[in-house]
């Protein structure tokens, strides 16, 4: 049984006294310049990366921190990585003996999952930034997904401890005072199935960090250290006020919501969990202390990603579309209990950390809905329904691999129907065109369609899920990760549930195997992988949906006549 005490995580306000060296204009100019420096890091990374997972899927995070490891700016990439990087900078710096051990020209590598919040494949490159007089002024950081870091399979849903999940670099110097550390370099090569791509991406991460360091130094050089630091306080205060202003409008109280993981990847039982939101004045506390114990399969979400999921959920609501920085996170505190699914301890497996994080975002909105349903959308499909494929080409014996997330229906909200796109936690990512896929991989796509009757009904309806079918032309290994296949996405304020996610393989002999989570399943030639992604939940009672909207949904085929009869009888003659 678990009886650790809950721990409260909030931003330690290492606030500096506000000097008179700035004003709201300089602060705005510096805010532009810092965001621009982060964007330039991102462009340099994309321009030089070797792997599509970086330059196409945008599976990375790019950020600039000040010397107190407070987030100054982050470039738009994978929202789920928003505000996670401070943890790995802190841990990496502690591991090498503290910031006084850092020298100009040092570059650190860090991927210990309980410090990054991610699986080991997500590796952070950290560059301390120094003035010419060797004063440490900040850090530039890029965490990127490495194609392979020597886990038991290229992608896994069934690991039982962290040691099956890849090589760990717990804060080591890949460069020491500007000189490549050859020992570490050879370790990297020896521990990857795809060393060439990995080394190329590492170089790209270092290049990006360098570009960011130059950008940060240029800002400080131009305005002076004092004015820059004062402006940063002003920027943080501004963001904090924006988020606080939002929560002041939400009635005080404690709001509870339930979520459930289908299973933990190894055992078959569902894993229910609860999250409570406490609003008090302008403060918001997200309480994960009722989470189930850490799991024997890889659905454990290390603390940094639990906090990140909370920050993503809150700032997407209350940050008004601003690029994130430390100030936006100040009103948010998070409570966890060590040894639970949302605060696992080594060596708990966490390869699928992102899936509980996605569920947590949806459940946080569900809890807020208990107070103010009009502030949030209903549940989305709640997953990215990922598939990783690999094999050897029949004609040439050459190895091939590919992987992709997929769109689901998005939840309706007070004022609009939901759309169909990737989950908000991967909102900048695109999936591959069919024609590109068919030219590259041994398969044929038989269908890519919006699924009729898959969206939750309501005054505003959810977005439909999609049906996608791949006919394999050669034997192919697949790993699939689909959550929420047992529970339907919920509606809000009387809105109805939507279709749940599904993944199955139709074998040539007619058998059908459900594969919501599977590792290294072999689909034979002419087997068909079928994804049926979930819809978004509805908002408001279906009886309030306007006649015109129901007629339009019928006319456009989003719903069938039978579905309309069942949910919208008022709109039919």
């Amino acid at each position, binding site marked *: 049984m678990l009886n650790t005490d809950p721990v409260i995580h909030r931003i330690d306000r290492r606030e500096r006294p506000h000097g008179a060296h700035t004003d709201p204009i300089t602060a705005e100019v510096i805010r532009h310049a810092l965001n*621009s420096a982060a*964007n330039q890091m991102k462009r340099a990374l994309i321009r030089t990366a070797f792997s599509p997972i970086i330059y196409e899927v945008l599976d990375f995070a790019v950020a600039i921190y000040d010397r107190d490891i407070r987030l100054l700016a982050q470039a738009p990439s994978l929202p789920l990585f928003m505000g996670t990087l401070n943890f790995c900078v802190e841990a990496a710096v502690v591991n090498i003996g503290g910031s006084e051990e850092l020298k100009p020209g040092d570059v650190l590598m860090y991927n210990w999952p309980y410090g990054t919040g991610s699986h080991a494949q997500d590796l952070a490159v950290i560059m301390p930034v120094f003035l010419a007089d060797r004063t440490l002024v900040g850090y530039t950081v890029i965490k990127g997904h490495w194609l392979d870091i020597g886990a038991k399979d290229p992608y896994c849903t069934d690991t039982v401890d962290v040691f099956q999940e890849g090589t760990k670099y717990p804060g080591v110097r890949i460069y020491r005072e500007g000189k490549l550390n050859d020992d570490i370099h050879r370790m990297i090569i020896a521990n990857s199935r795809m060393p060439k791509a990995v080394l190329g991406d590492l170089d790209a991460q270092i290049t990006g960090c360098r570009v960011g360091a130059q950008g940060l130094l240029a800002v400080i050089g131009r305005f002076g250290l004092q004015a820059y630091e004062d402006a940063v306080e002003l920027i943080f205060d501004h963001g904090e006020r924006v988020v606080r202003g939002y929560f002041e409008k939400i009635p005080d109280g404690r709001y509870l919501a339930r979520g459930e993981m289908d299973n933990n990847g190894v055992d078959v039982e569902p894993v229910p969990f609860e999250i409570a939101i406490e609003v008090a004045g302008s403060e918001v506390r997200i309480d994960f202390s009722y989470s189930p114990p850490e799991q024997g399969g890889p659905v454990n979400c290390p603390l940094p990603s639990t906090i990140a999921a909370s920050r993503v959920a809150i700032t997407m609501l209350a940050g008004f579309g601003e690029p994130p920085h430390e100030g936006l996170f100040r009103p948010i505190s998070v409570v966890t209990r060590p040894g639970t699914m949302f605060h696992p301890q080594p060596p708990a497996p966490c390869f699928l950390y992102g899936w509980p994080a996605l569920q947590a975002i949806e459940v946080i909105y569900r809890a807020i809905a208990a107070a103010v349903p009009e502030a949030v959308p209903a549940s989305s499909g709640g997953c990215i329904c990922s598939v990783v494929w690999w094999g050897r080409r029949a004609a040439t014996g050459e190895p091939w691999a590919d992987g992709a997330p997929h769109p689901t229906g998005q939840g309706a909200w007070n004022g609009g129907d939901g759309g169909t796109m990737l989950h908000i936690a991967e909102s900048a990512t*695109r999936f591959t065109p069919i024609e590109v896929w068919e030219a590259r991989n041994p398969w044929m796509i038989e269908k890519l369609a919006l699924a009729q009757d898959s969206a939750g009904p309501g005054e505003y309806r959810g977005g439909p899920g999609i049906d996608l079918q791949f006919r394999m032309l050669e034997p192919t290994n697949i790993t699939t990760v689909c959550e929420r296949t047992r529970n339907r996405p919920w509606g809000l304020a009387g809105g109805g549930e939507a279709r749940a996610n599904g993944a199955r393989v139709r074998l040539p002999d007619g058998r059908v195997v459900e594969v919501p989570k599977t590792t290294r399943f072999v689909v034979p030639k002419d087997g068909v992988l079928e994804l049926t992604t979930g819809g978004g939940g509805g908002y408001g009672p279906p009886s309030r949906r306007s006649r015109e909207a129901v007629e339009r949904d019928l006319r456009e085929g989003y719903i069938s006549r039978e579905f309309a009869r069942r949910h919208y009888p008022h709109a039919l003659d």
Partner: protein
Amino acid sequence: MATRIGVDIGGTFTDLVYHDEATGATVEAKVPTVPQAPDDGVIAAVRDHVPRAIIESAEFFLHGTTVGLNALLERRGATVGLLTTRGFRDVLEIRRGDRAAMYNLFWKQPEPLVPRRRRREVEERMLFDGRVLRPLDGSALPEIARDFATEGVDSIAVCLINGYANPAHELEIERLLRQLGFQGTISLSHRISGEYREYERTCTTVIDAFVRARMAYYLRRLDERLRELGFRGTSLIARSGGGSMSFAEAEQRPFETIMSGPVGGAEGASELARFLELPALITADVGGTSFDTALILDGQPQVLYEGQVDHMPVQSPWVDVRSIGAGGGSIAYVDGGGLMRVGPRSAGAVPGPAAYGKGGTEPTLTDAAAALGMLGAGQLASGIVLDVERATQALQPVAAAIGHEVEAAAVGVLHIATAAMANAIREVSVEQGLDPREFALLPFGGAGPMMACLLAQELGMRRIIVPCLAGNFSAWGLLGADMVHAAARTTLLPLSQASLAVVERTAQQLFENIAARGAGAHAAENTVRLDMRYRGQEHWISVPVSFSSVSGCASRLEDSVTAIAAAFENEYRRTFGGKLDEPAEIVAVRAGARVRLPQRRYRAAARPPSARSSQSCSAYSFHLRRRVPFKLIAREAISGPLAGPAIVTESTTTLYLDASWRLEPLATGELSIQRVEDAC
């Protein structure tokens, strides 16, 4: 030798420039844009500002317009029906799954141009290599055609999966639709684009079907009205990918002109860069509502092979002009958290900045500049006289909200706008691996020269070139837009001797396609480029190859496999800073044909022998951080070097020359501005 007239329609103003080849005179004018009837604005500009004799003798009318763009943005186009392969009618709505506003939880994809009921499927299937898996079964077409007729469909788009690799089924559908009596326009995806990516190709085909009738009507009407004014030459419209095309061709391929607006500026900048032998130039086009910037390297704009309008991709060449919502009309405000912001909301043409005295009350960038004296006495284009008092009043509440004097707030507005524009410039140059400090800045548009010194200072750039006709430079640039035709086809091949024969054949077919568009009347310079990448990559880069085309004979590919491989490797190294060990492969063949317009040069009208101006005004110097006297001088009165602080006025724009900058007129008419090293 050819007299020509250029008219560029912007969001706020319609700009006109004509060039009289006989006298060398170039005349410019600015009139307000007429959003409801843009051709009225064009005709008014030509009728009121171009002498009849010039109209009659002009050989070319060159046009940049936002008509197609606005039709898209405002969803005023044809009733389109879409035909596609069984299983894929939702490609248009599912898109690629991304969100345009990534931090916006409530973002929803725009309504597709074709609603779902008018997206219909036919039984057929091509494979990626052009083999037919399932032959076309046209038996459903009569029913579909009937439904389309009931729905009032007047334009049909056809985009089949892998239709780029084998057009047979698309062509057969067109034949059957005509047989069934459909009389509207039909857009076949393989004619629009020979490239793979079904969402992008479908979207482009649908855009073509959507705007075609409207564009054709607009172009025909404009052409007729020009002819009523006595014009007898050729009418050309700018292409999104650079250069121009005839109105007749644009009626057939309207999607190629969607982004013709900003192309004039990039064309003009390229021409100037070649003429002044400037290897690296960055444009800063500051209009009323937007700031556009483009890189000009070795006298060429950067061309992308896909563009975007209102979150919809357009699979067509696209001059890489980046735009942000910051211009003279951008509104300054203090947000809920207490920071001052500028834009992207704009006061537009109506009501315009407060200083225009047309009813605007919110403070804009122009108001801040007027309050600081940066626009001199305040005689602007179109006879607008700036009302500094109103500008100051409008700034008052913003200044109060941040506890500053009006002057400090106005300085802040300029600083913030500069920061936003400079970021856009930094990002386009860094993306190419280049440092903006090595570039010269080319400011133009109504407010470009006003921002030039501030931008250069912010970016650490040391040289500014103010072109002739800076306020109307986009229209001037149009006058030099050669006629250009382009076609491309995705052709996945390893780089080998055998593949080169396929490349050669494909290129020949592409040139035949171009000729079939009626583009063969003039002698063209043909070019071929190959999109190439390392095997396993998704992104590609485009590499030029030598291709001889002798009229009457079959054209030939001149380069060897080794030469092409080397060219690819060089380009890859230049772009990404390294090379890979993987074999190279060919992704697509691109054919281009350029018909050069006769050369023309700007010759300034003979200067009136005016005495050296001794006027001055008080304005804020950003360099000295206080108000100082600025020399006030008309551009045509400048005959030698001039050190800032000075304000240089011309009929359609005003140059703000801060202290620490020094200008020198070039013999060819441009103003070259350099930073003076600080004395202290």
